[in-house]
């Protein structure tokens, strides 16, 4: 899999892909997966408990979402051998439909799930980047490395780690702003979904995202 990740052919990402649809590919998980299953019943329960501020439940939710995201990712990767790529946005949505019983939750719970999933996605991406042996080498940061396209995976991994580190510093000043970046950048959520995930207004999210981008840009390229 690592080898295939380095294959230039897999570096191309369709510019903008609608969430929950994987053009040209059979969906990894059909929508019928959203009917209640034992797994989704259990995690829905945890999600509802987490809503009530049960810390234990929040921890458990994170663990389960993390595991599921990784599982879906691996299934996607096997599909990638036929030339299809998939984005983290898609993964988060798939995990949601797979794990949560839609009939029992309210929109706030969906936001909560997206928030947790964004944190898990950041961790998964960072762990992977580290395992690729990426280290921060200092020197000029190439903003382009974060964009998709024909950039070597190692360089992308390095850029990802740089963002992760800068984001940890940003969180010291302004945790809310950092959470927005987690949702937008690492999980690829839309501005609307990010507002759901952070429990704030769309306008607030847009402004926080703009401020965070300027700060990170200065921090990483300045």
């Amino acid at each position, binding site marked *: 899999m690592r080898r295939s990740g380095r294959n230039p052919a897999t570096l191309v990402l369709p510019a903008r892909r609608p969430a929950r649809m994987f053009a040209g590919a059979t969906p990894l998980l059909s929508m019928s997966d959203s009917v209640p299953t034992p797994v989704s019943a259990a995690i829905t329960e945890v999600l509802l408990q987490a809503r009530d501020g049960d810390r234990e439940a929040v921890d458990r939710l994170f663990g389960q979402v993390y595991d599921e995201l990784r599982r879906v990712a691996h299934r996607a990767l096997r599909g990638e051998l036929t030339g299809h*790529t998939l984005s983290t946005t898609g993964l988060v949505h798939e995990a949601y439909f797979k794990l949560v019983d839609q009939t029992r939750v309210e929109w706030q719970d969906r936001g909560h799930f997206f928030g947790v999933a964004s944190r898990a996605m950041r961790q998964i991406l960072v762990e992977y980047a580290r395992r690729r042996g990426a280290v*921060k080498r200092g020197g000029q940061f190439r903003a382009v490395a974060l964009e998709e396209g024909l950039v070597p*995976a190692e360089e992308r991994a390095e850029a*990802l780690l740089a963002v992760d580190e800068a984001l*940890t510093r940003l969180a010291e000043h302004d945790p809310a702003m950092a959470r927005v970046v987690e949702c937008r950048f690492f999980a690829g959520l839309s501005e609307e979904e990010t507002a759901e995930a952070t429990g704030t207004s769309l306008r607030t999210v847009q402004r926080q995202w703009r401020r965070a981008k*300027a*700060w990170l840009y200065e921090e990483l390229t300045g």
Partner: protein
Amino acid sequence: MTGAGYQWDEADRLFDEALDLPPGERERWLDRRCAGRPALRRQVESLLRADAAATGFLEVEGRRVADLPAEGAERGAAGHEIGPYRVVRELARGGMGVVYLAGRADGQPDQRVALKLVRKGLDSDRIHRRFLAERRILGRLDHRNIARLLDGGITDDGQPWFAMEFVEGSTIVAHSDARGLGVPDRLRLLLEVCAAVHYAHGRLVIHRDLKPGNILVTADGRVKLLDFGIAKVVEGDDEAGTQNVTRTADRILTPEYAAPEQVRGEPVTAATDVYALGVVLYELLTGRRAQPLARRTPTEIVKAVLLSRPQPPSTVAPGERQAALRGELDAIVLRALEKEPGRRHQTVAALADEIGRCLDSVHYRDNPHPGRTS
């Protein structure tokens, strides 16, 4: 810029306001809002420049699957076991590795620990040997302001780990800013830190990696120092006998807070912690790093730490604090930050004494909150 503090908050707030103005009006607006504050103005201007340049920056529709993990290779992900512990979730990441929140795997779920997994690629054999050598000494540190080291070991595939008392809190700087503490209250917090470091020095343990991130304040206001002595185990300062300054600089865990002798690869003493306390105090009082690094490259670190002299705190602090810092406090901080260890306060107790006298001085009694910002 990376320094925690109200200077950042202030710059961010002004930046936020400036975004609502037509670009043509910003110049005059800045003249007014940043009058007499050139550093602040530069910061706001550079954020505005970054905003203009950052169109499209970080804008991707999710990360690609090719950036995702390969099967089964993570260590320390939720649910995984490390030594007798099971990972609950990630708490933080740093130069040294990852810190997880973990519980006992053998069914004492209440006992939560901060589990530090040392980054791969560091020399784990040597770390393990050093850990065994240091463990008894570190385990004996028993102080209300020092997070206890509970356990440690090495995983099957050779990654060293440490389990420490789990502390929930915010960094000393974030805590002080969030509560809008004035100069005297900030000094009192630092005195608590000094007391803990002094206690450890009495037991021949030097921290070596003091920084705001390792100094937490809990919700009920108690100061807790993390990672005492861990840097010695992980860093390895004397073994290679390297004379190469840039190579040493490359290995420093937290260059922004490293003392000149650490960068030079020279022996670390109590005066090294005095220096770090000076850096923390500087940041606590001014919101800025004493030695800002443009980049974390070895040459940049050498230049900043060995050659450049920090500005007196009163000249970089926000206006309302400058008067309180000018004179005595400037002198105390700059002395702690001397490049030559012999020119600093010789003990942490001596540093604490000076700070304490400063607190006692009439100036503060007459004017208890000269630096209060809110």
